[in-house]
């Protein structure tokens, strides 16, 4: 492949693409950009056929790689650092820095005599956060941007072999990669002596078996080596000794998909977006009680209010916003006072949460924060690799306490034990899963302590979630007797004539909540105390 050939393919493909157009599958989760969005990583998704490398080339694909191969690796690292790009996989570590360390490590060892690669580049496509699917969108919609990013990263750090680790739950992503990689090889964009510059690089796919912890880079390395994925203590860092003991850089899908754009448009262009310490854009998967949920890409520094109320079009059913859970299961719940905080790595961390991979779950007044904490703890406990007691047993004990609290069995002592557990788990666990597992509990305890206390002291779930800890009451001064609740009640225990205030026959109410959801006039309130027939909590 030469520059001339690449230009020829681009010209032909551009014409052909203009005529053919691209059909976006109607069930695609990725909607066209909404006002306020800036698409860098997602720019090609839905705009090109991901199974044709020519389409990607039509969008200037692989021109960045050509440019990079005419620079020295040191210049590439410098440019990546100057762009201010930080890793999108969670920790926010600058990839240029990572490549620099790996490059140093390669230089400090003798070249392998057995013909094995001197270093490896791994693309982390494990994306295990429940509800997050940004990396999937990129891998499915624009696999070549990730391959090009990988080649650039490999050149910078001195790797000749790359692996893309994709979870088995993403069959379409795997399929598109299985198409893209041979296509790139055929055009000489992967393989030996790329662009005649003496740079060799090839990529293979490794499919993960669906463990959240395998997204943690050292566990991921174990998994690629064919072992059970369990985090390793650091040091040694993967950049020094990673896959099969070689210098290894693990970079996230979204991080890598940014790279070609940075080299096409220049570091200054990229650094022009975002905040002082968090440059560029970030994809978010908005979910929960928001009208317009889905995948978005926005400049760093945007506020939560803009995301939720402008792009997300506000809270469903005119309910009140209570909190946003950012950063996935290891992130935190931020209350309304953070709505105007700019979203970047520092601000989120300062608020006790995380950028994480970009999950954003919107919670409203009918979400119980104790139950939310329990939900995430259930997830992390299930996904703990079981290697270290603080995480394996500590999260189990936390989960048990939170479960008791949501079943009206919490005690004052439990509140203290929660604090004892969270403080210690976060400082004694081996990896970021254990250390971060307490964040949902810590942030909800910090910002919604009244809810915890209500569960413990009053056995009352004010959000109306924890079964057996509340009942409904129709407010006589609000009810206009429309009768909707009466019709919805499955057990027919609501009495009342048309246009007359209705009443719930409490001894027979099963507290299913159908009336509460149905009333359009906010005439049904949540009150302390169970009814005799409150559905008993499920025993866990």
């Amino acid at each position, binding site marked *: 492949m030469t520059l001339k050939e690449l230009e020829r393919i681009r010209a032909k493909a551009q014409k052909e693409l203009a005529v053919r157009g691209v059909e976006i599958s109607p069930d695609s989760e990725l909607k066209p950009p909404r006002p306020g969005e800036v698409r860098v990583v997602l720019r090609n998704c839905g705009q090109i056929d991901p199974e044709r490398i020519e389409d990607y080339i039509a969008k200037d694909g692989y021109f960045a790689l050509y440019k990079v191969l005419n620079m020295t690796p040191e210049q590439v690292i410098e440019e990546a650092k100057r762009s201010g790009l930080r890793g999108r996989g969670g920790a926010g570590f600058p990839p240029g820095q990572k490549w620099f360390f790996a490059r140093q490590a390669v230089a400090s060892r003798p070249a392998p005599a057995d013909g094995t690669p001197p270093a490896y580049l791994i693309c982390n496509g494990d994306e295990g956060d429940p509800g997050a699917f940004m990396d999937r969108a990129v891998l499915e919609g624009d696999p070549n941007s990730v391959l090009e990013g990988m080649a650039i990263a490999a050149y910078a750090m001195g790797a000749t072999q790359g692996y893309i680790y994709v979870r088995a739950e993403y069959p379409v992503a795997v399929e598109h990669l299985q198409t893209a990689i041979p296509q790139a090889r055929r055009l000489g964009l992967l393989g030996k002596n790329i662009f005649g510059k003496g740079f060799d690089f090839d990529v293979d796919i490794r499919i993960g078996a669906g*463990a959240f912890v395998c997204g943690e880079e050292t566990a991921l390395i174990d998994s690629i080596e064919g072992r*059970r994925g369990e985090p390793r*203590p650091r040091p040694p860092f993967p950049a020094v000794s990673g896959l099969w003991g070689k210098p290894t850089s693990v970079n996230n899908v979204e991080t890598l998909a940014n790279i070609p754009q940075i080299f096409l448009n220049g570091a200054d262009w990229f650094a022009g977006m975002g905040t002082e310490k968090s440059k560029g854009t970030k994809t978010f998967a908005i979910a929960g009680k928001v009208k317009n949920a889905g995948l978005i890409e926005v400049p760093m520094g945007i506020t939560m209010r803009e995301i939720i109320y402008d792009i997300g079009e506000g809270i469903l059913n005119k309910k009140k916003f209570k909190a946003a859970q950012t950063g996935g299961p290891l992130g935190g719940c931020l209350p309304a006072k953070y709505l105007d905080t700019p979203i970047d790595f520092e601000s989120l961390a300062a608020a006790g949460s995380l950028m994480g991979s970009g999950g954003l779950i919107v919670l409203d007044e009918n979400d119980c924060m104790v139950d939310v904490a329990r939900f995430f703890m259930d997830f992390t*406990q299930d996904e703990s690799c*079981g290697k270290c*007691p*603080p995480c394996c047993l500590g999260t189990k004990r936390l989960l048990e306490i939170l479960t008791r609290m949501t079943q009206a069995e919490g005690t004052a002592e439990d509140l203290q034990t929660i604090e004892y557990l969270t403080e210690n788990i976060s*400082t004694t666990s081996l990896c970021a899963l254990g250390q971060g597992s307490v964040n949902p509990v810590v942030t909800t305890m910090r910002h919604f302590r009244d809810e915890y206390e209500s569960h413990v002291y009053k056995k009352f779930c004010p959000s109306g979630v924890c079964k057996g800890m509340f009942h409904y009451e129709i407010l006589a001064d609000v009810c206009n007797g429309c009768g909707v609740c009466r019709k919805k009640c499955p057990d027919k225990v609501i009495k009342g004539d048309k246009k007359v205030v209705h009443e719930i026959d409490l001894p027979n109410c099963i507290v299913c909540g159908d009336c509460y959801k149905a009333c359009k006039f906010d005439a049904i309130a949540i009150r302390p105390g169970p009814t005799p027939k409150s559905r008993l909590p499920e025993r866990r």
Partner: protein
Amino acid sequence: MTTLTINGKTIEAPGGTILEVSQANGIRIPTLCNHPALAPKGACRLCLVEVKGSRVLQPACTFPISEGMEVQTESPKVRAARKFVLELLLSDHPKDCMTCEMCGNCELQDLIYEYGVKETPFVGDHHEYPLDDRDPFILRDMEKCIHCRRCIRACDEIQAVNAITMINRGFRSKVATSFDTRLQDSNCVFCGQCISVCPTGALTEKDSHGQGRVWQTTKVTTTCPYCGVGCNFDLNIRDGKVVKVTSNWNNPVNKGALCVKGRFGWQFLHSPDRLTIPLMKSSLWKEHKGTEGAPSRYEGFVEADWETALDAVAKGLLTAKSEDGPDAVGILASAKCTNEENYLIQKLARREIGTNNIDHCARL
């Protein structure tokens, strides 16, 4: 040389982990998942220390020292963290030390004692696994397992068998064979390396149960009688009888590793069937001595003395050679002999008797 301070004391060391440097300087740091024969894993979090500048506590067993590093191994924060981990471990551990085979020899018990963890503040589930006695030699009581993974690493790093691993995740994780089968249905070779490194009573020698506490037995280092490799191990002796074989990690021959025969095949020592005196056929004895001889437990055999027995053998061999030629004799040597002994037997066959009929059973 790297200079660092540990508990305020300036120390110079050529390199290594915080644990290694501390041990070399007489500073004890508690450990559970660490074992001198295994690569460090950083799993149990008992060896956590404070490293200045680090947000979280760091495991001494894996953390390399560096220039100017400041380490605290006994600060209140460190001790509290270790106590926390022990409380968690205790919250999922059967408290039956009185009847536990490992009582007095258990690293968990020692640390619980040292850190004074009387009660655990955590109430909740604990594992309930039936005692796994489906296999010969090895008894598995997985309720006592603290997930240190020493057994897994021994099976992998020392024995290279990989019969056991961790299965499941979270609270359900467990040391098991693939699909949680009996050991005999896995590729386990019953070398018992896993038992030798287990810090608790989770893995124990089946035949030694109830036979003696660690302080009731004395250890005698000896060489395995089974084969020519000459592995060393410790016989654990109570009241003059061997009750168990344990690894001797300090010997240069096998460095603690053993095979199924050496570790578990010691019962013959006290077997009433064991031959301790040479026996001769009654007729042969009569032929040599002209008397009836001392009757033995075995019909047709009398108890002989070595002199008479060896004389008879020598005479028999010479007669065979002179009457029917050297090739009328064949010699089968044993793998229980050392290489030197086998060399000598071969000399006996080739030079003294003059035959090449010499062979070896090659295995036990």
